[in-house]
């Protein structure tokens, strides 16, 4: 087992170095001059331009810059934002909980609806339920979520006035960011309205971000269930006269879940891509919106740090899923 863990870890390290190089190089290739961008209409004189280039280390050759970059990385220093002059890491850590909260809710939403939907479709194969559910899930899978978000806002916030338009909580509530998860923080505050407000703000973004994972999970559950239902031991169980519920609910589901869980674990990247768009539409103060804003402002250090940190998070989650999968499934463990 230890060997398995070590092999997996050793695979991660070169990838991580690759990500640092990628993050560094990508940003270094950007043509614009960030100092000029900051200067706006009023321009900047050459002497001050040079001084600022030096301040941000932009005058060094890129190899040197990469060396310095790695050295700083080892000290946990990802640089400072050129706009706010705040350390990138601290900006990331204040914004990341918002993204995490939204993503977790979206995954939960996708699982809670996707699993039963997929099961029903599998059990009632080739009925109207099956076709309906699969049709809807294919539509969900094909959805441009940035448009989906706008539509939901138009309907539920605009026309019906049921949900708030954007943000995480009404500005009237003063919540101390203890954990950074507003659902928890607002419960900790003694104001019951705060929690309700936080929940109301979460509904639409959760639906929007959860749509694609929901579709994937439903389809995956269905095909996985179909495969398991066709296997011998299920037929045997059925033949032995076990109640259909027991057969499907216990035997089949348990075995069908393994690939589904893996799929969920591997959705982190997709989820984050969705979060970029969802956060932009709902002005959700998370990491995705932060990065999109950083591109607009040519805030190199933020972009660089953000790409690296997100890459690291995705890698970390994939690794954990991988290890867990190995734990559950000894066949995988021995193969590697």
């Amino acid at each position: 087992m230890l060997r398995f863990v070590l092999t997996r870890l050793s695979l991660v390290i070169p990838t991580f170095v690759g990500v640092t190089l990628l993050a560094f190089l990508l940003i270094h290739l950007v043509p614009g001059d960030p100092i000029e961008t900051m200067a706006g209409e009023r321009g900047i004189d050459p002497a001050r331009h040079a001084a600022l280039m030096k301040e941000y280390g932009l005058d060094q050759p890129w190899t040197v810059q990469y060396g310095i970059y790695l050295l700083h990385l080892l000290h946990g220093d990802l640089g400072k934002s050129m706009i706010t002059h705040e350390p990138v890491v601290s900006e990331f850590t204040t914004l990341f909980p918002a993204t995490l909260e939204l993503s977790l809710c979206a995954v939960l939403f996708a699982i809670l609806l996707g699993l039963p939907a997929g099961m029903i479709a599998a059990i009632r194969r080739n009925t109207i339920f099956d076709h309906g559910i699969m049709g809807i899930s294919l539509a969900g899978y094909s959805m441009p979520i940035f448009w989906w978000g706008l539509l939901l806002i138009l309907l539920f916030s605009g026309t019906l006035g049921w949900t708030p338009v954007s943000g995480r909580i009404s500005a009237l509530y003063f919540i101390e960011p203890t954990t950074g998860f507003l659902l928890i923080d607002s419960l900790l505050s003694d104001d019951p309205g705060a929690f309700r407000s936080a929940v109301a703000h979460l509904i639409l973004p959760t639906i929007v971000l959860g749509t694609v994972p929901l579709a994937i999970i439903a389809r995956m559950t269905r095909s996985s269930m179909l495969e398991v239902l066709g296997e011998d031991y299920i037929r045997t169980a059925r033949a032995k006269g076990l109640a259909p519920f027991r057969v499907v609910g216990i035997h089949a589901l348990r075995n069908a879940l393994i690939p589904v869980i893996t799929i969920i674990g591997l959705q982190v990247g997709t989820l984050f891509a969705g979060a970029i768009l969802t956060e932009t539409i709902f002005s959700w103060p998370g990491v995705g919106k932060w990065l999109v804003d950083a591109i607009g402002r040519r805030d190199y250090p933020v972009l660089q740090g953000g790409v690296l940190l997100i890459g690291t998070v995705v890698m970390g989650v994939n690794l954990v899923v991988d290890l867990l999968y190995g734990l559950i499934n000894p066949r995988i463990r021995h193969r590697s």
Partner: protein
Amino acid sequence: MALETADPPKAIAPPHPLREFWHYFRANGGAFAGLVIFCALAMLALFPDFFAPHSPIETRPDALLRPPFWETGGSFAFPLGTDAIGRDMLSRLIHGARLSLFMGGTVVLLSLAAGVVLGLVAGFARGITEIAIMRLMDVMLTLPSLLLAIVIVAILGPGLINAILAVAVVVLPSYVRLTRASVISELAKDYVTASRVSGAGTLRLMFSTVLPNCLAPLIVQASLVFSTAILDAAALGFLGLGAQPPLSEWGTMLADGREFVLRAWWVVTFPGLAILVTVLSVNLMGDGLRDALDPKLKR
């Protein structure tokens, strides 16, 4: 339909693979519907000037934000209304179909070509070349696709061509992995050894012997990539990083109309609907392709 004409006129005892494919494909109602919609879209994309009632870029200061014909104030002159500077929505949508399909198609071709070559090289070369290629793919897969695309566009600058390149790069790893995996499993088979013994060169082995036998999964993958490409390109457009005005790319149109979301619902509703319908039709076809080409699922 193109597939039917490609069919040999006299099919004999074991059905020709294409005929068999068509049989399975047509049995799938969804896939057939997808094909029909897609063909209709392709017609629009090929002959936009024939279908579009107006020029997609002609501005009309006297007809700003006209609603669709069924709303009060709308008229059949602009069936789906006009946008903020008085351009006909329907015409822009039709011309947008050309852009979207073009983007999707180019991405598929570019990434398929590059991905297959890299995958073949990795599968044949093994050793350090393989490790280098596969590690690079791992790194690319580590970053969320849209994020990577955004960063690439940030480097190249926004625009139609750059958005295509960015998306093509982002979808590359899936082809490379797929090709390499199939190559490795094919290489172990007898027919490869046979042709190797009979003196076939590596290039010949790669492209004439092994590649045709890995095609089925690649085709299914291509249909997936096609729909992903359309979605991602539209997302880039929506973030202001894709095709630039006055091009009527659907994502760009959405972003452009966003400020009018409360005042003129049609400027955001139709472009999104167009994206959804297109992607859905491609995915329906893709499902049909997979069922038809995947022997495991054949009934």
